[in-house]
């Protein structure tokens, strides 16, 4: 009965795997769990690595999922800290404790070969609402405008809508991409595209436009002259636990803030 023995052994192996997995889960209890905004995720990972190096025995686990998912995770206790890359709504403020860890400029990006260097807030709104369909109407070359937006519920999108769109709706023709990286990839290859993303993630291959004649730089965000700015929040339900509090303290310390600044964000205060 070779086959029956084989099956029994297979079942046994499965069982052992299950048991060890349960074990490994309980062993990692000493970590701080972060979940939420994909804009914040890479920065939280950098912070986590430095924190783990500095304080032996402590781990920081970072997961994406989006700002709203981060809030849900914090409220259900799935994560110690939720990451949120937009201002909380009046309703949400009543349920959560927000901790401002940094601020982030929202950069308007176009292809590097697009001759347009700046737009007014009104022009920007018209482009994304689909009222202006040709680049030559805003001082560019003759050609279609292809706005690129983020998916419904993304913190970056909600910040953009709040800061730029006002009562206008983003055009239904807008291409929807599900990450900063995908927006970047698209704008890099398409002369007609215009998108928005975290200032810290723009890099050298795209052109970040001046908005109302102000260059999007960390300096201008700090000075308050560049107005497309959103808060980056750690969110907890009630006061954070001791392990989480230690990590938050590290993030708000000069060292943590310095790390965030080196990565292209703007310090919290």
């Amino acid at each position, binding site marked *: 009965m070779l086959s*029956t023995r084989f099956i029994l052994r297979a079942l046994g192996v499965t069982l052992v795997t299950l048991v060890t997995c349960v074990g490994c889960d309980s062993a990692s209890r000493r970590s701080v769990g972060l979940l939420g905004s994909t804009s914040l995720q890479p920065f939280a990972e950098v912070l986590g690595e430095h924190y783990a190096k500095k304080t032996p025995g402590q781990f920081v686990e970072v997961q994406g999922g*989006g700002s*709203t998912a981060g809030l849900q995770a914090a409220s259900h206790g799935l994560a110690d800290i939720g990451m949120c890359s937009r201002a909380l709504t009046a309703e949400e403020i009543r349920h959560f404790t927000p901790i401002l860890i940094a601020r982030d400029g929202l950069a308007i990006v176009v292809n590097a070969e697009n001759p347009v260097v700046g737009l007014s807030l009104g022009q920007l709104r018209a482009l994304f609402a689909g009222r202006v369909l040709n680049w030559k109407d805003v001082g560019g070359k003759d050609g279609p405008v292809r706005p690129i937006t983020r998916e*419904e519920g*993304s913190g970056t999108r909600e910040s953009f809508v709040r800061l730029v769109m006002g009562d206008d709706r983003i055009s*239904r*023709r807008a291409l*929807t991409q599900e990450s900063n990286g995908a927006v970047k*990839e698209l704008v890099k290859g398409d002369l007609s595209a215009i998108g928005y993303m975290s200032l810290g993630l723009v890099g050298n291959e795209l052109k970040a436009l001046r908005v109302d004649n102000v260059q999007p730089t960390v300096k201008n965000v700090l000075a308050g002259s560049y107005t497309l700015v959103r808060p980056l929040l750690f969110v907890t339900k009630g006061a954070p636990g001791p392990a989480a509090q230690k990590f938050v303290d590290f993030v708000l310390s000069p060292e943590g803030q310095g790390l965030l600044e080196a990565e292209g964000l703007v310090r919290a205060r």
Partner: protein
Amino acid sequence: MKQDKIIGAILLLVALSAISGLGLITVFIFREGVPIILRLGARQFFLSTDWEPSLGKFGILSMIGGSLAVTVGAAAIGVVFSLGLAIVLTQFSPPGLSAALKPLIELLAGIPSVVYGFVGVVTLVPLIRHTLGGPGLSVLAASIVLGIMILPTITSIAIDALQAVSPTYLEGSIALGATRWQTVTMVILRAARSGIVAAVILGMGRAIGETMAVIMVAGNALEVPHSLLDPVRTLTSNIALEMGYASGAHRQALFATGVTLFVIITLLNIAALGFSRRRPARSRVG
């Protein structure tokens, strides 16, 4: 053998738990999704193109249109290549070549969909953008990527259908003086017709359910597409794009999108099953 019985019972239990998983999923998505369809009204939900969750507007017509456009496109591309492959491999190629090619085609099924999507974004999308215009992310790009992805499904089922045709048909046709090609087109393909239709429908079921690759190459715009070069959002990508964030009515609307998809795929599978059971060729031989 007592041991056999015990193992038989264990395996039966495992099999049943897998099936009960299916039952639970079905109950769950219907319970979460159906109430909002009833509340908004079927007209509002299925026949409106206005999808604006933050304003409480949930109309999925443009996504139904998107899914259909992409699926039909994928089937058109998939059928041409799959049928060609199946005919060559069963009728014309030397046995050695078939033995080498068949596993290679099946290997296509093992490539993760995100890889297809990535290759599509990096090579196909810029190609379409530069040669045909438009944003590149389009019905066409999604159809081509999906067409390749469903190739193994359609090919392997079509091969089975063609091989199931009784050899007496081939011999009879050749004996009557028909050429090999005439035999294939006029006799064998007709005898295997129902199996081939089933293969195509199953391929379409796979295409309409595919998510990751489609999100990456279809552009996900909310407009009903007017041309092959327009971007589209499919039912699956709508769910995957917004699920992580959704709560309340928005979440329910996404489950309702899932219900729609579930019904479409079930209908496709029933159709495929119906066609594959109907084998007029065989029954007439017997």
